[in-house]
């Protein structure tokens, strides 16, 4: 892979630059194989170093991994940059008795929800954070219960406290006639459980306050102490509509801990299947958008395509949602070259129909009226909230992990284009979905035309260590951090998903638009609550 020279030099010079700024206070070690820099600093310098990476060096914030070690807390702030800029991990250690650390979300708003989550689940305090308190665990959980602490017994059902009868959500809008409209968590159709408090003065939604984690299944906690094979099932099944992407990220993290070499054929097929999943995800999202605008025939057309892809997947790969394919070390199933060609041929047929559908939608004014200039997210806001995936790309933020941090079979030999738009409205998001679906079919075709020969799996014995796995899931950048102990047991599993990140920024789009736009804006974001709540 040819890396841009200026970027790589910058990455290599991180140590010198950091040494000149914080003499003797920031310790830098470079891992050339993984293109990862580790910066160790004290909590006092944390904000400065994070701000430097985010604002001056243009790194994006990926995730914050907190680990409870025997004598100290370890905070790992993971950043990633453009192609050649690699990754930067800022590591801060803190004695166990010390539970307060400076917050970085005042500088980097993308870290806001992650700090709130960690405060709620670990009982750690982020100094200077404006809004801590009940987040993942709702008000019926007593204060001081921190499920992610190692001392917490995850196997028993926890007794609840009675919620206070007078409890009600805080309102922000104070004006004559202002009221709060609750939506969810149970909807009139098959929508996922989530709750929104919409503050309004009649027609327009002024404030959107999401209340999530109705589907919190404690994924990160229940994975602890389980074997890699068991956690693989969790990784695959916590978000069924992007199962392949998540199982791939987990497998890559496990493979990374021991530096295993994965057969080329497995890598190529993984790309093939990941793109097939992206295609299905995007067609489902398009169905959702048509449905939200009550365009019945278009909804039917899109859902016919979705079912076609599901049947195709099931026929050749055994499962309609690509379960049971990824295993650490490769794939559980080999596809013949003819099967791959068959699937990508069927892909062309889907593409032709998608293009026809897009052509018809483009000239349906009642449909466009609901999408154009509705649910806008500006580029500045998208950067500040660290939005990812099609949502970010519709606002002109291009950072696709397939391009900037190539993994599996992605790289110079696969030619594709990352679709992007500038408007940041619902229609821009729809156009990005259509173009990405086209690029996915194009990628599937390229892979099936040049499939390397050889085995699809290699034997892999997990060893103690830790590693980050990442994929560009259908919804955007996804990170799985895994620490393995003896006998292949998972000690810490951290999952950061695209839906979690993008739900954080959802209110930007939903505010200042009318009530009836709300479901449409939600559909154009195409987010999963299962993926967000974990």
């Amino acid at each position, binding site marked *: 892979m040819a890396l841009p020279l200026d970027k790589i030099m910058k990455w290599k010079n991180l140590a010198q630059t950091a040494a000149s700024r914080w003499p003797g206070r920031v310790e830098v070690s470079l891992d050339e194989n993984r293109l990862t820099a580790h910066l160790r600093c004290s909590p006092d310098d944390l904000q400065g170093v994070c701000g430097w990476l985010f604002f001056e060096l243009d790194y994006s914030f990926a995730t914050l991994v907190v680990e409870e070690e025997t004598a100290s807390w370890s905070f790992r702030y993971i950043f990633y940059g453009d192609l050649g800029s690699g990754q930067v991990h800022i590591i801060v250690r803190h004695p166990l008795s010390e539970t307060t650390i400076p917050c970085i979300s005042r500088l980097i708003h993308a870290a806001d929800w992650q700090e709130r989550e960690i405060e709620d689940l670990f009982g750690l305090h982020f100094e200077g954070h404006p809004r801590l308190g009940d987040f993942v665990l709702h008000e019926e959980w007593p204060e001081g219960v921190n499920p992610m602490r190692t001392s917490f017994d995850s196997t028993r*059902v926890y007794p609840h406290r009675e919620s206070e009868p007078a409890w009600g959500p805080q309102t922000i809008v104070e004006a004559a006639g202002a009221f709060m409209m609750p939506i969810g968590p149970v909807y009139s159709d098959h929508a996922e459980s989530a709750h929104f408090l919409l503050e309004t003065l009649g027609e327009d939604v002024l404030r959107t306050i999401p209340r999530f984690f109705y589907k919190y*299944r404690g994924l990160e906690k229940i994975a602890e102490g389980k074997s890699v094979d068991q956690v693989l099932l969790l990784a695959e099944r916590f978000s069924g509509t992007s199962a392949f992407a998540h199982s791939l990220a987990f497998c890559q993290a496990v493979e990374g801990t021991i530096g295993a070499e994965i057969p080329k054929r497995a890598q190529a097929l993984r790309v093939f299947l990941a793109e097939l999943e992206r295609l299905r995800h995007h067609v489902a999202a398009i169905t959702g958008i048509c449905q939200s605008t009550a365009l019945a025939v278009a909804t039917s057309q899109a859902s016919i395509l979705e079912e076609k892809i599901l*049947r195709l997947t099931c026929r050749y790969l055994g499962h309609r949602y690509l*379960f049971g394919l990824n295993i650490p070390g490769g794939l559980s199933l080999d596809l013949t070259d003819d099967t791959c060609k068959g699937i990508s041929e069927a892909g062309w047929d889907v593409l032709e129909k998608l293009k026809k559908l897009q052509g018809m939608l483009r000239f349906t004014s009642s449909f466009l009226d609901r999408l154009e200039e509705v649910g806008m997210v500006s580029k500045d806001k998208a950067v500040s909230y660290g939005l990812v995936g099609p949502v970010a790309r519709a606002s002109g933020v291009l950072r696709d992990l397939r391009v900037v941090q190539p993994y599996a079979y992605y790289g110079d030999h696969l030619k594709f284009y990352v679709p992007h738009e500038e408007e940041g409205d619902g229609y821009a998001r729809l156009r990005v979905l259509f173009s990405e679906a086209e690029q996915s079919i194009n990628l599937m075709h390229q892979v099936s035309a040049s499939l390397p020969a050889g085995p699809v799996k290699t034997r892999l014995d997990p060893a103690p260590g830790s590693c980050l796995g990442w994929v560009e899931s259908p919804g955007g950048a996804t990170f799985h951090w895994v620490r393995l102990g003896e006998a292949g047991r998972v000690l810490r599993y951290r999952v950061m998903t695209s839906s979690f990140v993008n739900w954080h920024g959802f209110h930007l789009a939903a505010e200042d638009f009318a009530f009836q736009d709300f479901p449409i804006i939600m559909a154009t974001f195409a987010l999963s609550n299962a993926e967000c709540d974990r």
Partner: protein
Amino acid sequence: MTKWVWKGLQTGIKTTAYPGSPETAAGVSPGRPGWKDPVERKKIMSLMDLCPTGALRPTEERISMDYRRCIHCFRCRRFPAEPLDWEPGYEWGEIVSNQGNLGKTFSNSLHIRIVDAGACGACLSEIGHITSPYYNIHRLGFFITPTPRTADVLLVAGPGTDHMRLPLEKVFEAMPAPKRVVAVGTCALTGGIFGKSFATRAGVGEIVPVDVEVPGCPPPPLAIIHALLVTAGRKKPPDAPSYPGTEREEGRS
């Protein structure tokens, strides 16, 4: 708008003939492990070790399936040299309570309320497909209703998360009798791989009384339709019990 009408007419009928005649199109169901002919004890044990959820159980000289635990991981099919038989099909709905089906009054029309109790999205996606052109439950007189007050059937997916306990209880209480609860997917039946923990229950049966179960991870749309037909008394549950044990036998109608 005429172009859309024309487009719809051009597309023709896509809908399955099921339950009039079986659906034979490829890829409508992932199938599930089948009964294996009598085999050596050693082989049975090696297959059982592969099963991560204990869905495979040894009985005498054969393997029995607890489909309520099967999560379609395909480990019993892809890993051993002699894989387990695989059975196609989708008629998986089973009545598990003493209440039986809803009876004649409801056999031509059911109103369904859907609640997500922590599902991963795949079950919900399959539930969504029962109203899509390929499956279209409206032709069967089945409708998804926006309010529990007019619902006859509560369709629940997911293991039953702690935070959804109260909403789920409230929906169930708001439904008028007679009513039936259909649990969709392995998570809803046994908690699946999430199992019993501080955040989830071992299935929604711990929160509301389940009457009909649809195993599968996820069960395909046809399996969900079969369960609804069973609930309405228009289809019989499968002949072979999906798991050994007699405690549930009484309730089978």
